[in-house]
């Protein structure tokens, strides 16, 4: 009886942004549910701390809502949101007098896959190499630590979240050329380090 009144319809970010800008809180909640996990994980990479990441994510969404009228184009919501979050994270670390990577020794890359112990079979990452998810996480975490913070942020925004160069330039508030050079250099270095690590792993397992 109740189900008969439901219709399936897709809504885009643009429509939700417009609804939220008109004061529709539920519309904004839909937008939040769409982006919260990505934003939280990005902030987790920046801060290395779950509490901080959650606080900053909430703060960023609230700030974004209160300033929605200043967002010129609804399509730019994602990079605008990430920019707010990025700036909040940076100013938080400035006021705390520590740098985001300062507590990197205390397990910075805390991305837990859902229960690798129970589900984790080897990942087929290359023709001759098999890595367990956890080992891969450790290798990737160490490789990322070798990049500069600027390179790391740009590379993560690109490779994980799929933002365009121009969007990353907006998030990090720097020229596109800077973004490109950070990503090219960072990605090149990752390729080398990961290649070595994976090769070392493969040699070790033979």
């Amino acid at each position: 009886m109740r189900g008969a009144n439901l219709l399936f319809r897709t809504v885009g970010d643009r429509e939700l942004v417009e609804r939220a800008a008109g004061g529709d809180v539920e519309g904004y909640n839909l937008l939040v549910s769409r982006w919260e996990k990505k934003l939280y994980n990005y902030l987790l990479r920046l801060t290395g701390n779950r509490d901080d990441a959650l606080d900053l994510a909430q703060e960023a969404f609230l700030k974004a809502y209160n300033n929605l009228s200043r967002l010129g184009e609804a399509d730019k919501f994602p990079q605008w949101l990430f920019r707010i979050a990025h700036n909040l994270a940076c100013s938080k670390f400035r006021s705390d007098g520590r740098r985001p990577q300062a507590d990197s020794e205390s397990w910075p890359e805390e991305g837990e896959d859902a229960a690798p112990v129970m589900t984790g079979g080897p990942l087929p990452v290359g023709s001759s190499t098999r890595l367990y998810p956890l080992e891969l996480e450790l290798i990737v975490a160490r490789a990322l630590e070798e990049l500069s913070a600027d390179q790391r942020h740009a590379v993560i925004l690109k490779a994980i979240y799929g933002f365009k160069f121009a969007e990353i330039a907006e998030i990090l508030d720097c020229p596109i050329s800077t973004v490109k050079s950070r990503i090219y250099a960072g990605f090149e270095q990752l390729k080398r380090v990961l290649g070595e690590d994976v090769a070392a792993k493969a040699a070790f397992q033979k």
Partner: protein
Amino acid sequence: MNCGETKQALMDLVLDEAGSEERQQIEAHLAGCAACRAELVNLRLTRKLLVQGLPQEEMPQRIAFVSGQAAKGGLRGWLGSRTFAIPVAVAVAVAVLACGLALARARLVIEQGHWELAFGQAPAATTAATKSAPAGTSLPLPAGLLTREQAQQLMAAAIRESEQRQEAASAARLEAALSQLDQRQRATLLALAGQMRYFEATQNVFYKEASRTRTALELVASRLPAEKGDRP
């Protein structure tokens, strides 16, 4: 396009920044260059490793906002609000009265200008009538004095209309309350499921710590050639 130019183009390709024109040029070059094909494989593998090595973690709790000014919704809020409390109370009282009378098979019988309440089976000539129609009924009233039949018809029509209205209203209210309950339950279950996933994930931190130590040791061991033969 030579290999030097292709190097950056390959990175663009892997990072989804290559336009269709650039893509065609790359493909043309790749067809005749094994070194660049190998480089492309390496770049793709790098991105794949990066994505798999940085899994997205569940949030410890979901983020949601409520409006500071909108009336808190739901049946309770609606009944509790001042605007509706009195009409609703009146409607409920009328409905209860109507139901009670109907259950007792009571009738208001008009006999030669006198009203009386009667119980039990109605005589064939008189028709049931329980109460006056609430304000807002839209029945046309003929001018002048009413005959008994006219009065009975009018009252029966008013009762039918009123009953239909009330049935519809209570059905709508019931439905609203049910759907709200359903949503709340669903939200609770979702929150619970999220927390379970999060809990499950955090358990693995311990495993990770142990495994990190093991990996570090293994890497050290792998650099000592003398021990290599003893490894399984």
